[in-house]
């Protein structure tokens, strides 16, 4: 544990989500699912058809990430976040289906922020471009679905003390807005 950071165990309970505020630094431990662009499209297609999803999404946390390949004997390659905004078009639907946490980088759409408030879910950001560093917090990686997508396959990851910051909370708090207000100079 690092001073000033809150330990968060997954899956996220409503009680924990209620305590998280934009700007809070956290260390996340537990199971997260790596899901990015192409896999999001497929999840939505499955929901449209009324099919069962390849993992139970209710209560879970998704990490927007497609790793580099593991070398023999490695758990995973570099494993930093990708830009969350590309998932915005799919995300409210997944939140409605029970998704509670998302980890990525960069700003979200108004629709996503509204869904976080309405359904009690939280969006975290982590350090883009720190793929080597973040890979050290991943203790286990198991394929879940869509292996033919290569780097975009869904993975079940076990993480310990994965560093992140609460970006959008259930109260409408927004890390990026706060940051700009605080550090902006001039007009």
């Amino acid at each position, binding site marked *: 544990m690092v001073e000033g950071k809150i330990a968060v165990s997954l899956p996220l309970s409503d009680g924990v989500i209620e305590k998280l505020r934009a*700007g809070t*630094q956290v260390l996340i431990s537990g199971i997260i699912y790596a899901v990015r662009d*192409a896999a999001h499209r497929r999840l939505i297609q499955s929901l449209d058809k009324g099919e069962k999803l390849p993992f139970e999404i209710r209560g879970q946390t998704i990490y927007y*990430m*497609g*790793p*580099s*390949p*593991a*070398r023999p004997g490695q758990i995973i*390659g*570099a*494993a*930093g976040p*990708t*830009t969350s*905004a590309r998932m915005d078009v799919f995300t409210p639907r997944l939140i409605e289906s029970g998704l509670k946490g998302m980890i990525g*980088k*960069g*700003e979200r759409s108004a629709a996503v922020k509204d869904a976080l408030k309405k359904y009690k879910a939280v969006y975290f*950001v982590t*350090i*883009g*471009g*720190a*793929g*080597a*560093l973040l*890979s*050290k917090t991943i203790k286990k990686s198991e394929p879940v679905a869509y292996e033919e*997508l*290569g*780097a*975009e396959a869904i993975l079940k990851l076990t993480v310990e003390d994965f*560093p992140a*910051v609460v970006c959008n909370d259930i109260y409408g708090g927004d*890390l*990026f807005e*706060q*940051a*700009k*207000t*605080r*550090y*902006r*100079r*001039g007009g």
Partner: protein
Amino acid sequence: MREIKSSVITEAVAVLCREANFELGEDVLAALKKAEQVEESPPGKEILRQLLENARIAKEESLPLCQDCGTAIVFLEAGQDVHIVGGDLNKAVEEGVRRGYTDNYLRKSMVRQPFSNRVNTKDNTPPVIHTEIVPGDRLKIILLAKGGGAENMSRLAMLKPAEGRQGVIDFAVKTVEEAGGKACPPLIVGVGVGGTADTVMLLAKKALLREVGKPNPEPEIADLEKEIFKRVNDSGIGPMGCGGRVTALAVHAEVLPAHIASLPVAVNLQCHSARHKEIVL
């Protein structure tokens, strides 16, 4: 006429892919260290510290700096007295990228057909190749591993000539502000001014290859860089958008002559993981 074997080119490109993805350049590291010292925001400072730690781990353990190992963009400066033997130059470069990305466990991020079924080519080919014929009998190869996040936030504007210098500055600043945390700041901001719609973006991209923070030798252009740099760093976006003083590590601008009707401006954004390596054969 000097002969260079295509197999030598393949091997050189493969090595550049590896070096670019595992080792940040000394200039980028120095810029990140300086940023870490001047950054006032606690989260911003912490992120910069972690990026330096990330670079150390990547180099020591041969782990990619970033899981997005990029589109392989290859700049060739071919001396007019060079004769490539033993095979097609472009194929030799492509094979180098294939081997470099496969042998070093780098992520393959290219899809064959971008607007429909997006099937991964599984070997990170094709690369983007820009070839220039120059005097001499050497072949210079520069490999830029360009991540998708920052490239996605790059923009082109065909301004009216009356918008002038202020128009150029405003467009560059607006591009960085709209990119926010998505393009992985602190950025290197490549700005191309002039030329045509096609050449201006290439100009902006080539500006990214300059040593980080080295001003344009032309004083008027260096002043333009300075002003954009100040405005961008006053935005408050900071490292990864988490707030702070360091939104850009540098602004590099390059200029070309333009048509009497035109003032093209291109902004090509480079994330902090500025990965390029070069070799002269």
